[in-house]
């Protein structure tokens, strides 16, 4: 009897293209290596892409004690940090000054379907929810956020990843 072998996340690694999101082969290779190291990292690594300085600082304060947290203000930087750090969870604002959180979520999920992406936004617009769903993001959190909401997201990530 032939058994189907489930594809590994690595098999889905694709090379996205686009002006703001181009990557080099070296970056892709480094990312792959970082992702392998995820299993042995002592702390969860979290990326927060948020253009408002106050909310960036608040995210940092909320998470820095228990997690490795990196924050940045734009989608382009978020993409760079994503590739460099292979974070376990990425919290993305939607209204970013450059290409926007949906575009970044799309790129991240296209690049690594196993990525864990949560939209963190004040928007309740149906079209934003629909786009997030189309991008297959893992969570959609409405601002204002508080510790409980963040803990719930991280808890869901842990449950999902066993």
């Amino acid at each position, binding site marked *: 009897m032939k058994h189907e072998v489930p594809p590994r996340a690595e098999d889905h690694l694709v090379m996205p293209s686009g002006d703001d999101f181009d990557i080099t082969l070296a970056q892709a290779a480094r990312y792959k290596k970082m992702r392998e190291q995820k299993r042995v990292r002592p702390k969860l690594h979290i990326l927060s892409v948020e253009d408002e300085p106050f909310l960036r600082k608040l995210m940092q*304060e909320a998470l820095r004690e228990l997690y490795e947290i990196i924050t940045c203000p734009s989608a382009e930087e978020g993409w760079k940090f994503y590739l460099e750090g292979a974070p376990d969870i990425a919290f993305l604002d939607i209204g970013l000054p450059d290409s926007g959180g949906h575009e970044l979520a799309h790129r991240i999920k296209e690049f690594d379907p196993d990525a864990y992406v949560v939209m963190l936004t004040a928007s309740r617009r149906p079209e934003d929810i629909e786009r997030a769903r189309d991008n297959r993001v893992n969570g959609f959190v409405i601002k204002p956020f508080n510790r409980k909401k963040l803990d719930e997201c991280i808890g869901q990530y842990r449950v999902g990843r066993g």
Partner: protein
Amino acid sequence: MNMPVDLTFLREITGGDTGVERELFDVFISSSAENLESLKTNCDPGKENAWRSQAHAFKGTSLNLGALILGHLCKEAQENYQAPMEKKRQMLAAIESEFGRVKEFLEKSTSTAG
């Protein structure tokens, strides 16, 4: 009159660390001053989208701080982004006045904390 800021949720994050709170308040005050300036420069016809986006950003930070009245005023400004200039000036005056109260409250809390 209602308190301009409810720090309950923020303090869950800061754990009452006054040094961290002071840093957060400083960032809030300076970025809000920029939001306010930007709203002022985007009152004119033809700048509706910039007005809406600034009001949206200001709303988000205000609500996350716990400045609920300010957040509500910004939400109103966001929703009425197509209002005539005179109405926008009125909304702006209300936001500016409430921001003054919030700022005073934050400055007082940090000076009391030493």
